[in-house]
């Protein structure tokens, strides 16, 4: 965990942003795919655009690559306006979701292709291709054709081909999407290591939040052509700024409530669906009696057979569903109001009398657990 990119020190804030996207809009006829997006990415960062299909993340990436011309707005890379620069003149390379390896060329020819276009001397091309293939652990595969490679090897050829030109910015479209689960886990750490070694700025597009959280230093959550929230994985997960972000990232119990006790250092929210009030240990910037949404992650709950001593944030319910996943167990607990809570409990002990169906349990959560969002 210590090598997780989220915990690495962010780039110094004093430097000018390396990539600056200024009020970028892309319309396809009536449809607005990307709507007034502004974004700044410092040099050497792994930035991840996360969102469901049709949220505009791929269109945004394609505008960065130069495949789509923005309807409005501008893109600056290293201070240079590249908005109208065609893709073949941009200091940007892309790794395609399908990898888009040239099927009629060998691995070495694929990797060398970009350098050939720049009329790099033959000897240097050879040296750089060899070096790059060694870096992605594909030395000895130079003469193979793409169809003779496995999915993971193809992914690494695509990465080598995109990196060999030493781009200022590398765009990755669902880089791990076509790999199976085991390979993904291995590859995502390799990708982060490679990025650290080369110091290239990465912009990754993905719909997979786990991929986003393991790879990215910062994540931008997109929906309907707009970026709703930008933050580190921790910020996005623990401090979502909207219902959508809270719901989109991870699993969450979402309920509506009314602000009843509004103090600067704490608030109480009356939640009829829970049949009680939720105590939150920080203030919120909404007026009293405002309607708010309360989001609590399943792992923030503590389950017990005996009533805990606390008075606040305490509910009781009946277990209606159990899914044992090994590391954790997921429970569904029905409250007297009929509302069903998702609860995740770690399996700390091997020998333990686990909760059974129809058992009555107490649920408690810490005053900092609930997230209050107003939109």
């Amino acid at each position: 965990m210590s090598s997780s990119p989220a915990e690495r020190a962010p780039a110094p804030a004093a430097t000018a942003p390396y990539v600056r996207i200024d009020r970028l809009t892309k319309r396809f006829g009536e449809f607005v795919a990307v709507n007034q997006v502004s974004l700044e990415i410092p040099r050497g960062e792994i930035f991840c655009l996360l969102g469901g299909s049709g949220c505009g993340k791929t269109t945004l990436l394609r505008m960065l690559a130069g495949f789509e011309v923005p309807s409005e707005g501008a893109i600056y890379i290293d201070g240079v306006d590249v908005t109208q620069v065609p893709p073949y003149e941009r200091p940007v390379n892309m790794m395609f979701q399908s990898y888009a390896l040239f099927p009629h060329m060998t691995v070495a020819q694929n990797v060398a292709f970009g350098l050939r276009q720049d009329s790099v001397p033959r000897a240097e091309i050879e040296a750089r291709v060899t070096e790059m293939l060694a870096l992605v652990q594909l030395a000895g595969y130079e003469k193979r054709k793409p169809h003779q490679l496995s999915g993971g090897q193809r992914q690494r050829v695509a990465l080598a081909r995109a990196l060999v030109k030493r781009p200022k910015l590398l765009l990755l479209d669902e880089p791990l999407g076509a790999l199976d689960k085991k390979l993904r886990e291995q590859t995502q750490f390799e990708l982060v290591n490679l990025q650290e070694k080369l110091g290239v700025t990465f912009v990754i597009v993905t719909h997979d939040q786990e991929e986003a959280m393991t790879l990215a230093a910062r994540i931008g959550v997109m929906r309907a052509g707009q970026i709703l929230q930008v933050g580190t994985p921790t910020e996005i997960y623990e401090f979502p700024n909207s219902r959508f972000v809270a719901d989109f990232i991870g699993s969450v119990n979402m309920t509506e409530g009314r602000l009843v006790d509004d103090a600067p250092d704490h608030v109480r929210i009356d939640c009829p669906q829970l049949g009680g009030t939720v105590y939150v240990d920080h203030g919120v910037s909404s007026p009293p009696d405002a309607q708010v949404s309360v989001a609590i992650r399943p792992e923030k709950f503590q389950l017990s057979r005996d009533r805990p001593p606390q008075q606040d944030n305490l509910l009781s319910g009946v277990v209606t569903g159990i899914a044992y996943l090994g590391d954790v167990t997921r429970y569904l607990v029905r409250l007297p109001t009929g509302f069903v809570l998702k609860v995740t409990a770690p399996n700390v002990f091997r020998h333990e009398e686990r909760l059974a169906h129809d058992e009555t349990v107490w649920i408690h959560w810490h005053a900092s657990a609930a997230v209050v969002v107003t939109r």
Partner: protein
Amino acid sequence: MNSVAGTGLARAVGRLRGSGRSAIGRWFVIAVPYFWLALFFLVPFLIVLKIAFSNIQLSMPPVEPIVTWAGDKVFQLRLHFSNFTFVFGDDLYRAAFLNSLQVAGISTLFALLIGYPMAYGIARAPGTWRNILFLLVVLPFFTSFLLRVYAWMGLLGRNGPINGVLLKLGIVAEPLQLLQTDFAVYLGMVYSYLPFMVLPLYTAIEKLDLTLLEAAADLGCRPTKAFFKITLPLTKEGVFAGCLLVFIPAVGEYVIPALLGGPDTLMIGRVVWDEFFGNRDWPVASALAIVLLVILAGFVLLLQKVQAREKEAA
């Protein structure tokens, strides 16, 4: 190449072997078209081959039988190679063959140069347009081939609309001699065989993954260069198929040179016709047909070998 073809064959046989009724069904499905080909292609071919080794004779049919009963328990098989020695010895036939190959080759080249952009445009056109454009390519087949060639005679004639327009505009003072020229033959050839070029090219271009071109652009390749580096190599199969489909029938073409060409347009199809109907020399006509077939089969085999070698390299 052999190993690849071998495993493919083995797999096909394995699939066919199957068991019981389904296997019989599969054999039946394959046997019917082969039976058809044997009856209407192989048998006539053998007849032509037989005639090619026969001798001219005043009778109906005007050939000697090659197998005769000589009496005394003896069947005689008499093969006349004289037809072939005659065909190879005569400059006229050699010129006709060479000229046919040249006309077919140049026509194929022009069909490719015109057909590739056409096929590319159709394959890249938006949905509904693509269907309309595709239909337009196939549309000429709705009319008889002969009629379309006759239509060109009308268009190219001295009093035809093309000369009419040229005269009206004052570009020429006298009507041009368009008909009965090599130009008319090439025009007719390219026009008639263009769809056979466009269709396989369209199929190949349509299959091409467009992200490959984006990848090329992303790596710094300009569009024109990307065409020669990516698009053309990956649609080569379509180019081969289209060229074969145009070249082979063009070599033996009779109608177009006969109707649009001049008296000095010497093509092998016409020579075969003249030998057969004019001179009633069936054996020489058959020998010419056999030589033509061997030449074309040679071309096809050569092309297959080239393709197989590339597959092997892949």
